[in-house]
């Protein structure tokens, strides 16, 4: 059996070669579902370490991006042995970069980390109009709406999106979190979001708090 603690540590260290070698060896043993779920959890714990190291300024944004890549390679290797019931989601997030803004690096980091934490993320992409958010919230009925942006003009689009969610009678049914360079506590209040963050790992923690 795979040494789960060693795996968690290798993910935390972003030691890709070691992680992939361990997982390949594990998959070759044709493991059962329960074991595989334990391995996925170990990877997720490794991602939590990555988030902590980011908070401690040991890792930076480039490392978070790489962590996302590492995790998706890891999941690809595990997919063949992952059974259906292992994909229990803790909640759904409708996510997008708001209208007028084409930046998606921060959004993608958050998406990777949220998925690693067990969320199902419906990613609407970039330059997403308020109406598309409204439509998707109606259709998917997520617990959480995540809006991202880098330019200061994104704040206006975030406000417009929240306003349209209100008009459509959907605002009370979801929690709204905003993220990206320009968001501040004041912007959060003006926009009418429930939370804001400039740190993807913290954003995921906030979302976890909401679905507990």
């Amino acid at each position, binding site marked *: 059996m795979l040494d789960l603690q060693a795996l968690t540590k290798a993910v935390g260290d*972003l030691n*890709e070669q070691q992680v992939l070698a361990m997982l390949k060896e594990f998959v070759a043993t044709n493991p059962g579902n329960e074991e595989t779920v334990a391995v996925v959890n170990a990877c997720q714990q490794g991602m939590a370490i990555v988030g902590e190291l980011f908070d401690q300024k*040991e*890792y*930076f*944004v*480039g*490392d978070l*991006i*790489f962590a996302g*890549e590492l995790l998706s390679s890891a999941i690809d290797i595990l997919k063949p042995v992952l059974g259906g019931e292992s994909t229990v989601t803790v909640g759904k997030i409708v996510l997008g970069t708001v*209208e*007028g*803004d*084409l*930046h*998606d*690096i921060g959004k*993608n980091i958050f998406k990777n980390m949220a998925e690693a934490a067990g969320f199902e993320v419906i990613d609407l992409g*970039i*330059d997403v*109009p308020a109406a598309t958010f409204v439509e998707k919230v109606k259709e998917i009925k997520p617990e959480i709406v995540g809006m991202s942006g880098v*330019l*200061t*003009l994104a704040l*206006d689009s975030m406000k417009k999106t929240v306003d349209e969610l209100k008009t459509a009678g959907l605002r009370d049914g979801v929690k709204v979190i905003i993220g990206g360079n320009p968001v*501040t506590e*004041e912007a959060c209040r003006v926009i009418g979001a429930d939370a804001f963050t400039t740190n993807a790992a913290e954003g995921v923690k906030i979302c976890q708090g909401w679905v507990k």
Partner: protein
Amino acid sequence: MARERTQLFRDVIDGNIPKRVPVCVSFSIEFAIQYAGKNLAEAQWDTGQLEEIFDQICRDFYSDLLPVNAFRFPSFYKLLGARNFVMSSNGFLQHPEVEGLLQEEYDDFIASPYNCIIEKILPRLYTELDTDAATRALALAKAFKAFHDEMGNAVMIYGRLNQKYGYADINLFAGFTEAPFDFVADQLRGFKGISTDIRRVPDKVEAAVDAATPLMIKAGLQPFASKYNATFIPLHMAPFMRTKDFERFYWPSFKKLVDALAEAGHPSYLFVEHDWMRYLDHLYELPAGTIMRFEYGDPKLVKEKLGDKHIISGFYPVALLKTGTRQQCIDKAKEIIDILAPGGRYIFDFDKVPITLDSLNVENARAVLDYVAANAGY
């Protein structure tokens, strides 16, 4: 007036104490268009309206240098089918994540960067160049015609505004280039690509950055050497890297670039984007008199570490102009000037270029600029 203003900057660059702290702020073309009450998309395409638009900024906001400077117009990017500069639905031209070079093509780039750019990278970044030779030649000719028309028009407008408002006769944008690592990241591999490459193929990244360095030096050279005309280098990736990665992949070629430009007689004007506080000792090593505009950080620490060698600018938080009272905004200017002005080598500027009209309170911005112009004497 122009002569007096020019002297302010010359004194700062020469290491003398000027009569007053020079003011150099700039507003984006989008801000200027909104301020003039024009349509964003229309005015960026129909650049015949630009002079009237820029004139209103010059008229209403104090600066000792021309406070507008647009050099990316949608016409030539559109003609090229650019994927690296794209306008969003509401009229803001942006740089999306692009991959001009595939990971497996590193060796081609390292062997011959120029050929690789022409043969592989340009057709990938500019869809209109991804075609047969004749059509590509025509597309390129059209785009260059548009480029020269737009830039010719813009430069003439800048000349007339310089004359009309008596701005200083120095140019901080006389040349433009990128740090070699930023070039490889921004145009060739993308943020995601480069962040994975420095772990998966580190030797190739290092070699590609070295291969790009002579091109970046060449791009940054100006036709004539003058210590009063700088080459602008906006810095990007360093704050997003670990220090040890920065020291291996970013710093050596960047230092080589700034050194080479200085040797050729061109000072560099750096936009030190995001948080560089980890790298102040590195920045100190750049040639004396490098002009550094900071977006973020502790002005005291920067003055203490860099103030006797380099010229410091930036730091004034645009966000405060939106949220603060008039008095708070002025007090902040006073606070920053008290830290950075002693001993000279300081140019007043905001931490970032305001890009939308509602990113600041216009009255606050004017009050701060007028305050600095009237009160920041030595």
